[in-house]
């Protein structure tokens, strides 16, 4: 199956990328934006999705500084329909 893993900086970890983007948006006229956080998206094909948490814990994510969320296949498919 196709899986999608969202990796985010843990709450409380300073995210200078997010801060820089948050400062940039008002400069372009987009007001009222706050709490910008920038993470990473990993997509992969996997035969045994039950292995995904172990993959995240051992390699894909550093649990000390990052949180992750595994997005199930049917939600991924729904996303794609909306994206058109």
């Amino acid at each position: 199956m196709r899986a999608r893993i969202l990796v985010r900086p843990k709450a409380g970890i300073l995210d200078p990328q997010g801060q820089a983007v948050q400062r940039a948006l008002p400069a372009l006229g987009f007001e009222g934006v706050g709490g910008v956080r920038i993470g990473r998206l990993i997509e992969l094909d996997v035969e045994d999705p039950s292995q995904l948490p172990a993959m995240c814990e051992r390699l894909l994510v550093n649990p000390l500084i990052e949180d992750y969320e595994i997005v199930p296949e049917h939600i991924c498919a729904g996303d794609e329909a909306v994206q058109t």
Partner: protein
Amino acid sequence: MKFGVVRFPGSCDDVDALLAAERVGEAELLWHQDRDLHGVDAVVIPGGFSYGDYLRCGAIARFAPVMESVAEFAREGGLVLGICNGFQVLCEAGLLPGALLPNISLRFVFRQVWLDVADPDTAFTESSGGRGRVLSIPVKHTTGRYYSPEPVHVVLRYAAGENPNGSQDDIAGVCNEQGNVFGLMPHPEHAVDPLTGSTDGLTIFESMRAHVGDTISV
């Protein structure tokens, strides 16, 4: 006393680390796919961009075959020094606490910094000149902001006003609880010759030699 300097694909300070180690003892390169540490007395994980630093700095390198042997070597009390990318590798491998995050400035920093020796009694600082001594050693990195949610054994701190990356509590280098694994973002191997302005980096290698010498004579 023989140092082994690990070479990963993407290492770039391995030769400087080798030359620095050769100023105080023997040294040889260790290949990332070779589990054999060739009987060295201490291991140096050098700076660079191991495995391209893909995913996170050091995240792939920690699974290199040589790192299994380095972890075993560390468990048995062997001295392991991680410099810059080597520090990142040791944190990712769980041999040191904490993690390195992108610099607050989001920029590459490259400059000489002053470091306070927070603990002059470790195997890596015992020849540094004692408490209160400051060392002049360069930094060059983009991902050097140290972070640990737990208290750690701090060995080196950036002196007041010198913190180049937003590191927590001005931490520049930490060691593990046993005191035999040490990682730091500054590059002692680039501060070993008066020609480049400072020889303070040599004190790290001299400390390791002295420590290993003491261990052998006991």
